[in-house]
Structures are given as structure tokens and as C-alpha cells.
């Protein structure tokens, strides 16, 4: 145990500033919303992921704060904990955020992440996106992971397979879909996030 005890978490509440969100914070393919950053496009297959966030009894949950965090198209992170960080796409930061709309809708534009070998465990990670959900009535963030359909590496992924029930695993596999709001050149997927109740999304200890 460390010498210092961590500060407790507290709910994000309902008043997280909408102004923190640049107009493009949910578009991970551009980093130009940060002053001075590149305005080039990230490498890889552009994808659009959208869905609805529900609380109990299938009621859409608005004003939830959703964050994406993922590797780039070749499976690298621009972070010192990745031993191959020098190979990371300089035009991809891997992080995005947005609040769900009045009807619970959320969406992100990103690139399909690559798989990689986890430097800590040596296990092969399937392509995946780390997703955090925060909001009023949520004492701390909930974390889950989105996986891709028809991906052979899912079978060996340690996070995917930590879920014992195959039916529950299905709930975090992205489903091919069509959305009127998606960019024309993006592959589209749907995934709803159910905070509580039937078909509840599996969440992980982080």
C-alpha cells in the first residue's frame, strides 16, 4: 500500500460546463480544437458510433458525460506507458468527450483502433474503445469497453472474457447500423448504454 491515501470520488453533478466541450470534442479524428495542435486527419478507417443512454426502466438519460479513450489505428498510444509510443499517429489523440442529448443520444466520430499486446501482461488485446460514463446520480464514473463484431481477437481478449456470460458479452459488441447524422464516409455502429435494469451494460472495476 502507498503512503498516501487517495482522495475520494464525488459525483460530477448536473452542472459540468457545456463550454468545456469544443464543438469537435466528440470527433477524435481531428485534434484541431486544441489550439496549436494538428489539423490533419487521423490515419485509419473512419467510424461513427452512436446510441442512447438509459437509466432504470429504459428512461433515456440526458446530460450524461461520456468519454472515449482508445489506441490509434495501428494499436499505439501517444503515452510513455506504451513502449511503442514513438509509432503513435501524431494526428490522433485518442480521447474525446460529449454530453448525451435530451433524448439520451450520444455519438462519436473516430477511427477503428488497432489491437496490441498489453505491455504489462503480454496478452493480446482485441481492438476496443474504453468508455467512461459520468453524471448526476452516479457517485463515480462507470467504465466499460466497446468491442467490434466479427473480430477473431475478441476470443482471447482478457477484458472481453472477464464477462462470464456470453449473452452479457454481446451487450458491449458494436452493432452495424445507419444514422442520418453520420458522416458519409464513416462505417457506422450502434451501442446503447443501459446503466440499470434489463440488458444492463456490463461495467468493470477500474
Amino acid at each position, binding site marked *: 500500500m502507498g503512503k498516501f491515501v487517495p482522495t475520494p470520488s*464525488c459525483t460530477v453533478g448536473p452542472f459540468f460546463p457545456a463550454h468545456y466541450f469544443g464543438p469537435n470534442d466528440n470527433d477524435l479524428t481531428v485534434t484541431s480544437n486544441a489550439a496549436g495542435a494538428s489539423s490533419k486527419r487521423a490515419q485509419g478507417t473512419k467510424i461513427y458510433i452512436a446510441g442512447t443512454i438509459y437509466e432504470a426502466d429504459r428512461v433515456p438519460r440526458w446530460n450524461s458525460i461520456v468519454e472515449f479513450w482508445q489506441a490509434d489505428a495501428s494499436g499505439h498510444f501517444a503515452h510513455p506507458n506504451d513502449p511503442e509510443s514513438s509509432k503513435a499517429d501524431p494526428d490522433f489523440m485518442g480521447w474525446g468527450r460529449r454530453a448525451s442529448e435530451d433524448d439520451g443520444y450520444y455519438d462519436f466520430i473516430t477511427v477503428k483502433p488497432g489491437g496490441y499486446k498489453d505491455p504489462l501482461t503480454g496478452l493480446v488485446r482485441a481492438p476496443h474503445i474504453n468508455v467512461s460514463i459520468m453524471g448526476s446520480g452516479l457517485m463515480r464514473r462507470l467504465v466499460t469497453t466497446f468491442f467490434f463484431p466479427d473480430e477473431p481477437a475478441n476470443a482471447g481478449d482478457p477484458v472481453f472474457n472477464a464477462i462470464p456470460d456470453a449473452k452479457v458479452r454481446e451487450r458491449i459488441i458494436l452493432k452495424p447500423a445507419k444514422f442520418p447524422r453520420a458522416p458519409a464516409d464513416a462505417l457506422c455502429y450502434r451501442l446503447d448504454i443501459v446503466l440499470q435494469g434489463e440488458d444492463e451494460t456490463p461495467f468493470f472495476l477500474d
Partner: protein
Amino acid sequence: MSARDAIEIDPPYDFPGYKSTALRAPKQPLIRVAPHPLEIAGPAFSRSFAKESEADLTTWGKSAPLGEKMILVGRVLDEDGKPVRNSLLELWQCNASGRYAHPVDQHNAPLDPNFLGQGKVLTGDNGEYRFVTIKPGAYPWRNHPWAWRPAHIHLSLFGNAYAQRIITQMFFPADPLLPIDPIFNSVPDPEARQRMVCKLDLEQGIEEEALGYRFDIVLRGAKSTPTGV
């Protein structure tokens, strides 16, 4: 083993004193993947994400905001006491009247045209940070009869690894509303609660201008085990 495993630090997802948790807390237990973090890398924000001016919330308008000016200083450390450097810290709060400049806030208290109530910094080489702001007011909420939130400042930290991400609230010493605030008291351990209270530190203030407060924040170690039971 992480300190978070040894004692209950975080509030439970389902806390009856905070009503809306009943609709949003998952019913299924969280899944433990392995005795190591889900992802070891975390987002790295460059200096361009937090301009120096964003650390001063009092110069955003045409003139100074109303309220008690204060300086908030502190350090961000990990469980071993090592500084968490170059990490993004976002801060947001209501104005001196207890009103957020947020469309969702319906509290019948005046907005201050000179106060937006949001700031950002990147921590320095010793994990240090400094904000200039005003002391937020208390505000009522509809959780239960006579529900008032004690004065508090919201903080969002990214740390240097995915497992270090934390959202929390900072409270003020000797606030009479603390004992009746369900959010403050949702943290099970009374000692842990006190670590959400800042300390008066006059000399960090500005003589004849602003009060000084100190609030140090401890994040989990970058390689610590997952939280919870």
C-alpha cells in the same frame, strides 16, 4: 495492493441519501478483470489544452466577479507521494450567490455576468497547481426537504494513467452544511471525508486582496489494482 482495496474510500454507487442514485446505480456487481488496470496508458494533454489565463476565473468578464476572492493552491500526488506532473485538472463551480452559469441550473439566484465558473490547468513539475477564483455560495437542491449543498468546488483530474481519472468535490472548513450533505457523507470513512476539505492557508492568498486555501489531491498509483471489493 492499492489503498483503495484496503478501506472503502469512494462512495457506493447506490446511496439512498442521494435519491437519483436509485435510478442510475447498476444492479449487477462490477466485473473485476485482473489484478491490474484495464488500460495502462491514459490521455496526455499538451500545454495547448490549458492556457495560463484559464487558471484565473476572475478575469473572464469586463470587471471582477462579485464574491470573496480566493487563491486555491495544491499538489497532485500519487499513493507513493510522487508528484503527478503535466496532468490536466479541470475546475468548475457556482458563483458567490450559488448559481451556475449552466442552462440546467434553475436556482432563483442571480447570474454574475463576470463569472463563468470554469477553469483548467496542467500541473507543474512538482504536481502543483494554482487557481484564482471566488468562494462559491451554498445552493438549494431538490433531493429532500431543506436540502442545501455546502459551498464546494468541482474538480476533474486525468492523472497520468487511465486508472487515475477522478472526479471529485472540494469543500470548505467548518461549513455548517457539511454534516447534512448527503454527497459529502456518501463517502463512508469519516477520515476520507476530511480529505475532501481544503485548509485555510493565508500566506498563499494575496495580502489585503484574497484569501488562500490549500487542497492536495492524491490519485491512485498508475499501476495500482482495480478499485472496490
